[in-house]
């Protein structure tokens, strides 16, 4: 590197000239400012990114609800009076909510206005009422006040996402609906409450009924597969390469492969999954097992690289001491080197898992992008994962899904922060400097 120093620095022309010195110091200051502004730009962008998402997403954790006096009419629920679960299950509960709304606003008689009135409440209100009746059939015949979810349009309106003074044609909530909503607000029958549906439900076409639980379960199942494949393979391969492998062509080939795999675009792994696992092996589409497999292939190079770094950090004196008291090579490795390297290995694994949790593109290839309402129960059920759910919602036209998407992103980021925090804690607590 000595040749680089051969280029002359600043020209040696009267270096003490005050003007030249001033210029040089000004250049120095400018250069420093470039550096600081680069960091500031990065920081500002990060804040803008997280801020805009938090800002949009915060409202999705709350849901506008309308208090209605629901009369559980036996005529509607169970006209035959048998109380058979099948009959109770298939009754039209939405009607109950609609009737309650009609009694709340008796002045609405026009058919079109009536239809507009029913649009105030969620089309899933019936399912909630059904759940209540199935839980306690004694409700039938009684009247009680319940908070019913509003529709997503009303929800957006109440949360001020839509300007009140916009021309009526630009609003999903029309003028007459605003009058009703104002009446409800005035009587205290309209309020926003913490939305548990978002955490317990699965995907839905209706924003107010959509939740992330299905995606969280899908992510969990997928990561279980990923972890149980990539961790053993990664650690074993790292042990072999670091402790046992002879230096030869074959080992070189493996190393080149690992380094390259770590940099292959993720979507290519998706293509591999589609051509190999789905077409040739005939594994099920959209299943966590396939997603987990693909992500495992993506993750294990990362784990190998981290594990090897952790293994090399263990000083040779440990190995020599163990060998000296008669341990075999494998005993040295498994009883002494690996436990000492474990914090580093775990840290690398958690970071790899965090990356796998945020990965979307390869899972699109293997069909995890389908609209799935059921919560997956096993590794072969069709499922989706959190980032794919985010992608799906981001594509939805309904306005309320923008907030839902941001909220789902917040949940995803919370998981990632938790995982990375765990990695940092592991590193701080257990990592030893030799």
């Amino acid at each position: 590197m000595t040749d680089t120093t051969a280029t002359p620095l600043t020209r040696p022309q009267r270096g003490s000239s005050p003007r030249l010195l001033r210029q040089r110091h000004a250049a120095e200051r400018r250069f420093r400012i470039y550096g600081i502004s680069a960091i500031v730009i990065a920081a500002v962008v990060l804040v803008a990114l997280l801020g805009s998402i938090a800002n949009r997403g915060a409202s999705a954790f709350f849901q506008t609800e309308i208090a209605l006096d629901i009369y559980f009419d036996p005529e509607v629920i169970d006209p035959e009076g048998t109380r058979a679960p099948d009959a109770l299950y298939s009754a039209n509960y939405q009607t109950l909510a609609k009737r309650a709304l009609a009694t709340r606003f008796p002045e609405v008689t026009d058919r079109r206005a009536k239809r507009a009135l029913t649009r105030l409440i969620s089309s899933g209100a019936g399912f909630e009422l059904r759940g209540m009746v199935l839980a306690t059939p004694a409700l039938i015949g009684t009247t009680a006040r319940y908070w019913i979810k509003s529709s997503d349009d009303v929800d957006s309106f109440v949360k001020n996402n839509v300007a009140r003074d916009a021309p009526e044609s630009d609003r999903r909530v029309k003028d007459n609906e605003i009058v009703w909503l104002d009446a409800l607000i005035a009587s205290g029958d309209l309020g926003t409450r913490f939305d548990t549906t978002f955490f317990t439900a699965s995907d839905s076409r209706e924003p107010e009924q959509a939740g992330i639980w299905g995606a969280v379960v899908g992510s969990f199942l997928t990561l279980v597969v990923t972890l149980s494949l990539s961790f053993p393979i990664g650690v074993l391969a790292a042990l072999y390469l670091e402790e046992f492998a002879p230096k030869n062509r074959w080992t070189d080939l493996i190393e080149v492969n690992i380094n390259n795999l770590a940099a292959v675009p993720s979507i290519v792994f998706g293509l591999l999954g589609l051509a190999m696992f789905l077409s040739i092996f005939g594994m099920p589409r959209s299943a966590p097992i396939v997603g987990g497999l693909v992500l495992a292939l993506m993750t294990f190079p990362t784990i190998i690289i981290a594990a090897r770094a952790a293994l090399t950090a263990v000083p040779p004196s440990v190995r020599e001491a163990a060998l000296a008291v008669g341990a075999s090579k494998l005993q040295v490795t498994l009883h002494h080197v690996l436990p000492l390297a474990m914090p580093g290995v775990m840290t690398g694994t958690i970071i790899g898992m965090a990356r796998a949790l945020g990965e979307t593109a390869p899972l699109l290839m293997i069909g995890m992008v389908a609209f799935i309402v059921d919560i997956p129960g096993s590794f072969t059920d069709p499922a989706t994962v959190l980032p794919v759910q985010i992608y799906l919602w981001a594509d939805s036209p309904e306005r309320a899904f923008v907030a839902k998407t941001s909220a789902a992103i917040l949940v995803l980021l919370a998981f990632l922060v938790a995982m990375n925090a765990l990695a940092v804690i592991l590193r701080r607590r257990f990592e030893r400097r030799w």
Partner: protein
Amino acid sequence: MQILVSVITLLLLSIVGYELGRRRVLILAGARRRDLHSRPQYHGLYVALWCAIPGIGAAILWLVARPWLGRIVALPDTNGATTAIVAAIAGITGLAIAHRRIAPPLRARIAVERIARAVMLIASTVAILTTFGIILSLLFESLRFFAKVPFFDFLFGLRWSPQTAIRADQVGASGAFGAIPLFAGTMLITVIAMCVAVPIGLFSAIYMSEYATPRVRANVKPMLEILAGVPTVVYGFFAALTVAPLFRGIGESVGIGVSSESALAAGMVMGIMIIPFVSSISDDVMNAVPQTLRDGAYALGATRSETVRQIVLPAALPGIVGGILLAISRAIGETMIVVMAAGLAANLTANPLQAVTTVTVQIVTLLVGDQEFDSAKTLAAFALGLALFVITLVLNVIALRVVRKYREKYD
């Protein structure tokens, strides 16, 4: 499901085998424990492995062979428990054989260690198998594609419209597979991304390695790591819902038409995503420049910025170039940002305000949704994937070589 049952069965059998082997050798040795070649645990492991390995082998063989066997003889339908039964039979046989071999002089540790080494070797070849799998699957499907669409039409064609006709007389269903617009779009977005990422990444790395106090470093480095840890789908959402409308609004206010899926928005956000790659690699290589070089420059009276520009950067240049190449390959292969924020129409343009499409966007569009696996449309995705793989591979190999060659100079 049957796999899970088989695994559990074999696991239980192996645990039983471990205990049996360990106890048997202890009983056989009796009071003369010193006659044991290996410690009792190894005898246990010996039996357990003799149970597990034949069991796994038999299960795999059975899973592969059953479809053929089923055609020859009618197999009883036992709710998928057959795999577990086959595995259990093989496992118990192995267990019995190994159990009889157990004796104090048996070199159980040697046998177990040999198997452990073999397992490690197999684990390390998974990397090679994966690469092979990728190459084979991409190549195989691409060859089928090139049987339908000539290779050079694909590589040098100027028109991309992958809608193949279902009926012969369909409008706009010509099915043109010229990939040049996609490559051009990818290039455009990558160039925009690098215009953002290289200056910001490089300058923040310079500041961090040459100017920053340890405290500033300790705060800024995690910040950049957060930027690297944000999932790409989040960047995509940010690009599509915040940045693109912002640019469009700015364009409207000054009277320039900006597409709502402009290459600029996607490229800028991708650049932000790539900042940490550039900065962390540049930071590393600049830290690797020996302090003596800097001290020499200071001794000659150079200011810090002069030292950085004329000593540190030239010395670190190969590493930085390598890092930028890696970042470019990352940008080319990035999918979610462009899927969400870039367009679908294959425009051949260099105008960053218009919508362009990229290779990865087209792969996703061609493959998402149900399609028959043989149409040129689906196969085209694999040809694009192959192109993507080759380009990124070449970039990675060059980059890794440059970085390594340079690092060796100081070691």
